[in-house]
């Protein structure tokens, strides 16, 4: 038997077969209905993404009341500007981009003498070079109660510069892809990767201070 040498891509039938169309995202149908004036369809979108928008705003502003106001404003603005959403990105990414802009505006209002942007404080070198090389054993969940751990996580992420905090939140907590994070923040993909690395390393270093002590104390 002759050896089969042609690859799948060489198969003429394969080359002429049309690509399988991607399923449209279910949000698109809801957006179209909302554009036509169906407020119940828009309410479904609110239910789907209000938690994500609230958490994103809270992570950036670190202020619960601001996050509540921002969540309302984001969805109201989205509703008013639905016609501008063309479906080129995910609806959730579009909402997150509005939320990030609204949150940064709040920070600017709060710190009237300082400009707050995605670039603020990103030049810090803290944590970029790891200094703590202790393993976390046992696991933090085994050492701290849920509420203690929650306090530590809040304090630790609050200490990051807004530019790092936002990238970490979108990429690692809200699970946006690197590309979606870049789009939501108006940054390049390499800029997101660089900030994500530094955010992760700074958080690791700061958490190590808590967890190393606790680990040593539990020995």
């Amino acid at each position: 038997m002759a050896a089969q040498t042609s690859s799948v891509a060489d198969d003429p039938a394969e080359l002429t077969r049309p690509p399988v169309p991607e399923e449209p995202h279910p949000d698109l149908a809801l957006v179209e209905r909302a554009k036509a004036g169906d407020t119940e369809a828009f309410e479904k979108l609110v239910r789907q993404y209000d938690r994500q928008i609230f958490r994103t705003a809270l992570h950036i502003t670190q202020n619960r009341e601001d996050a509540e106001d921002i969540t309302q404003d984001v969805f109201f603005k989205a509703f008013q500007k639905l016609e501008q959403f063309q479906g080129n990105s995910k609806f959730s990414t579009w909402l997150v981009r509005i939320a990030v802009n609204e949150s940064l505006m709040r920070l600017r209002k709060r710190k009237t003498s300082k400009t707050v942007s995605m670039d603020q404080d990103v030049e810090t070198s803290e944590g970029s070079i790891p200094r703590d090389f202790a393993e976390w054993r046992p696991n933090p969940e085994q050492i701290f109660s849920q509420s203690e751990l929650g306090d530590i996580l809040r304090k630790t992420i609050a200490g990051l510069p807004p530019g790092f905090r936002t990238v970490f939140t979108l990429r690692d907590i809200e699970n946006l892809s690197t590309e979606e994070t870049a789009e939501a923040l108006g940054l390049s993909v390499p800029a997101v990767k660089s900030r994500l690395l530094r955010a992760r390393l700074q958080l690791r270093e700061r958490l190590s201070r808590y967890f190393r002590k606790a680990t040593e104390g539990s020995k």
Partner: protein
Amino acid sequence: MNCTDFLAKLTDYFDGQIDPVLLAEVKEHLGSCHHCEVVVNTTRQTIDVYRGHEPYEFPDELATRLRSAIMQRCRASCSPAAASSPAPEIATRRSE
């Protein structure tokens, strides 16, 4: 590969976006550098602990209140009267 080179590849390594040749180099470095191994393990734990313990609650009561306020504003903006008057103040919004 030294530790600085390794750190430069850490994001791609975590995100599984690293080409096989570099991945082999990363793994070789990790096998021989305890400090970098600790950095990888504890950075992974950092990500996992945040993913597993969302530090900010979003209670049902808050969700209901926000949704109600949002939809009230949206519906008010659709009404014929909205075209000739500004959006109403919503009672559930925090006063400034």
